[in-house]
């Protein structure tokens, strides 16, 4: 298990290989469909974004409500492919990491190596365990979106797996190849 500090540095990213199990610590921004749509609308209008993405990692998540005393409610990953249309322009702004689940979209996959960006998978449906690694949460943009607002999470030992590394190696392609059996 590799410990990884966020924000990511180029050196850290170079050391990550698809299939590595990692524990992420530091800060991440959250965002999913609705927040991404707003960010891209602002970019289209040439306006400044409410967040600075340079070097940052975005976690695709819409947490459940926190119970009293919790930093955040259960907060597992959502499907990454839905953010495909929005992600290449964010990579242009310096975004370095994405955390989600399932395939990352083809447009994003194509440009990730040129940006030296990495994609981490978190395990879908393990929202309680993941939330225990989120030490604090605050909304930094779009509070009206509720669970879809952009939050900043401070995380400690957040369990993840490198699914696409900066060289473009893809666990979702390579992993299943090892276990695929011929049709009966």
């Amino acid at each position: 298990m590799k410990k990884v500090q966020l924000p990511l540095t180029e050196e850290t990213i170079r050391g990550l290989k698809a299939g590595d199990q990692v524990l992420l610590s530091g800060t991440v921004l959250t965002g999913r469909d609705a927040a991404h749509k707003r960010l891209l609308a602002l970019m289209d209008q040439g306006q400044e974004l409410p967040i600075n993405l340079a070097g940052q990692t975005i976690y695709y998540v819409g947490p459940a409500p926190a119970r009293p005393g919790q930093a955040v409610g259960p907060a597992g990953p959502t499907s990454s492919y839905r953010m495909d249309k929005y992600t290449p322009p964010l990579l242009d702004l310096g975004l370095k990491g994405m955390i989600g689940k399932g395939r990352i979209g083809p447009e994003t996959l194509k440009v990730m190596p040129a940006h030296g960006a990495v994609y981490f998978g978190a395990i879908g449906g393990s929202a309680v365990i993941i939330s225990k690694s989120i030490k604090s949460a605050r909304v930094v943009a779009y509070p009206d979106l509720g669970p879809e607002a952009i939050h900043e999470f401070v995380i400690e030992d957040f369990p993840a797996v490198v699914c696409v590394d900066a060289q473009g190696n893809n666990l979702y392609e390579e992993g299943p190849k090892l276990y695929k059996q011929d049709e009966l």
Partner: protein
Amino acid sequence: MREVQVSTITQAVKEMFMEANYVIGDDVMDKLAQARQKEPSPLGQMVLDQIMENNRIGAEDSLCVCQDTGMSVVYLTIGQDVHLTGGALEAAVNEGVRQAYTEGFLRKSIVAEPLFDRKNTGDNTPCVIHVRLVPGDKVHIMCIAKGFGSENMSQLKMLTPSDGVEGVKKFVLKVVEEAGPNPCPPLVVGVGIGGSFELSALMAKRATSLPLTRSHKDPRYKALEEELEQGINRLGIGPAGYGGQTTALKVHIVTAPTHIAGLPVAVNICCHVARHAERVL
């Protein structure tokens, strides 16, 4: 005639959605444990361990095991000798959903209109309600909390009679392979065969809520369920899609009579967080 106050339905629906979101059934937990024994992939083993541990904590601490607490789907089977009193049935069911999601720390994931504003309704209503009237004086309620990571990977196809068993197998495997890691495998795969366009989908959804210990009564369909499960597990997708031999925990088939010209097949994919609760009033 037996009188049933709709407020008792509200209370039941509320309790069932809270329970379904916090507690994963023993049937699913047993299947996960069996799969863990057989899974050869080290990453797959790790994923299954994390899922089982997550479900244990969720049940203990009354926390929703997945943050996507789903769109609420309610199947009501009502005896025709029941007289529902005290208000409108649909409003009572929706009130149960509203109370569960607002008081139970569950995420509100429903937008009022699908295409333009997509504004969140704030209480996870309205839910989807399917009502059937049957003989008797009981009210049977099945509550399903359906996450959309897996719902989005579901498909329906109008096959033709000549496609036959092979056509059904090919389509089900295609749907699961295209879905790959996206719907959070290991999966419960609900397959509706026959009926009309919409009935096949309703059967497929209902199939995802059946106990994992159940098999189709007709030995031919039971054999098909087993063959599909094996076929899916040979695709190599594995837990979380990281590669492995545990992709489906169970394939359930539900069938209905159909038209001489048709062979509708609906595949409703459900993640390992197979959340449902059932009660008879």
